[in-house]
């Protein structure tokens, strides 16, 4: 597979006909980020993990497409409550994909400030799910 940057114009042409706002592709040969500015599709600078963390330190995003759940269906209680202090690596929600549950995990410690999406709603990859106040 060739360098993905060389395929940017092809991807941009495809994206122009969709309502996709942000497109990110990572392969072993490189990565590509395309965004929408008005009617145009533009190439965005690569966004590495540290940079993303610097921009939005306090948001836990969906690791996949799925249905966001605040708690396990067998348990009565949610996994996290507003105002609760949680360490890094804490599971604060679940994402259901068909028969599968994936954990929604904090990247850093914080205080749960808000649940951005209601229990049981479908979400896309990268959708902000939980807001954290840094401790």
């Amino acid at each position, binding site marked *: 597979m060739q360098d993905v940057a060389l395929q940017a114009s092809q991807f941009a042409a495809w994206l122009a006909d969709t309502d996709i706002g942000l497109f990110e592709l990572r392969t072993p040969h490189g990565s590509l980020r395309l965004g929408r500015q008005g009617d145009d599709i533009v190439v965005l600078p690569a966004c590495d993990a540290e940079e993303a963390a610097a921009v939005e330190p306090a948001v836990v995003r969906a690791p996949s497409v799925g249905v966001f759940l605040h708690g396990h269906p067998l348990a009565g209680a949610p996994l996290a409550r507003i105002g609760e202090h949680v360490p890094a690596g804490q599971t604060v929600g679940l994402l259901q994909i068909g*028969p599968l549950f994936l954990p929604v995990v904090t990247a850093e410690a914080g205080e749960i400030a808000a649940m951005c999406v209601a229990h049981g709603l479908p979400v896309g990859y990268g959708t902000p799910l939980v807001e954290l106040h840094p401790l």
Partner: protein
Amino acid sequence: MIEVLSSAALATVQDLGRTGSLRWGVGTSGAMDNLALAAGNLLLGNALGAAAIEVPVFPFKVRFGEDCAFALTGADCAARLDDQPLLPWWVHQARAGQVLTLGLPQGGAQRGSRAMLCLAGGVDVPEVLGSRSTQLRGAFGGHEGRALRRGDVLRAAGAGAACKTGFGLVPPALALPLQQGGVPAVRVLPAAEYMGFEPASRAAFWAGEWKITSQSDRYGYRLEGEALRPIAPMELRSHGIVPGVIQVPHSGQPIIQMRDAQPSGGYPKFGTVIEADMWRLGQAPIGSRVRFIETNWEEAVAALDEVRAWLDKVARMVELHRGAPAARR
């Protein structure tokens, strides 16, 4: 190695069962909740029928002597790894020295009665007559042919190997629910002597709720409800029976044969719980109530297809997820 720390009453090593030996009078044994066993194994990337530990009495405690991935399925038992609460129906990673504790089953209406502890690669015990299940009556298979005791040490065939952990499954109690009049239900095929019972008894069997009495275990469930009366006394010679068969002794209170059922019996057979629903019964707690739904051969086969389709879907999704690169944060 994992070491059993609790007295572990009645916890046994089980796989999908010792089929094909009934002709020698050897019962099937196997997990009471075969779906929990299969799903736990899929989460770990094990063979579907790898052996696991079935836990019916709590609390239950084990210490991991080495790093080992494990899956918890079946009854949700407020499990903890050291002090860390664990999600049910989930695959976890234990580090050497950590202690896993299973508490009392919880979950209100969805409460089960048996937890399944599946280990990476399966519990490494010798295969006897094609199965690793504990045959309690014959005292062979599983771990030394008996229930586990404090101090027992078991080996996980895949301990120490890298295994993707930290994800789970929608439990089949939610994915494949079955109730009748708000009560958990199982489907039943009328059996050979069904028509030998009074019409009112036949009607009462389907219409009533049946309590699972305290005289219920891996051998059989004794039920309590409106007594089932034969039109005339039936005396039968002993003949082959299988798990799921519902016998009616003279008391009129039925007995459902479970996984450790003896392979023959002489009581009249009222019905047979279909194979696809045996896991539901396997999770029904003592003291709970169950209802019976009349079914036929075609529906029973379709129900088994539905269970297999669910397992196939789980297998596909788990395989996709296990093969995916680790998420970047």
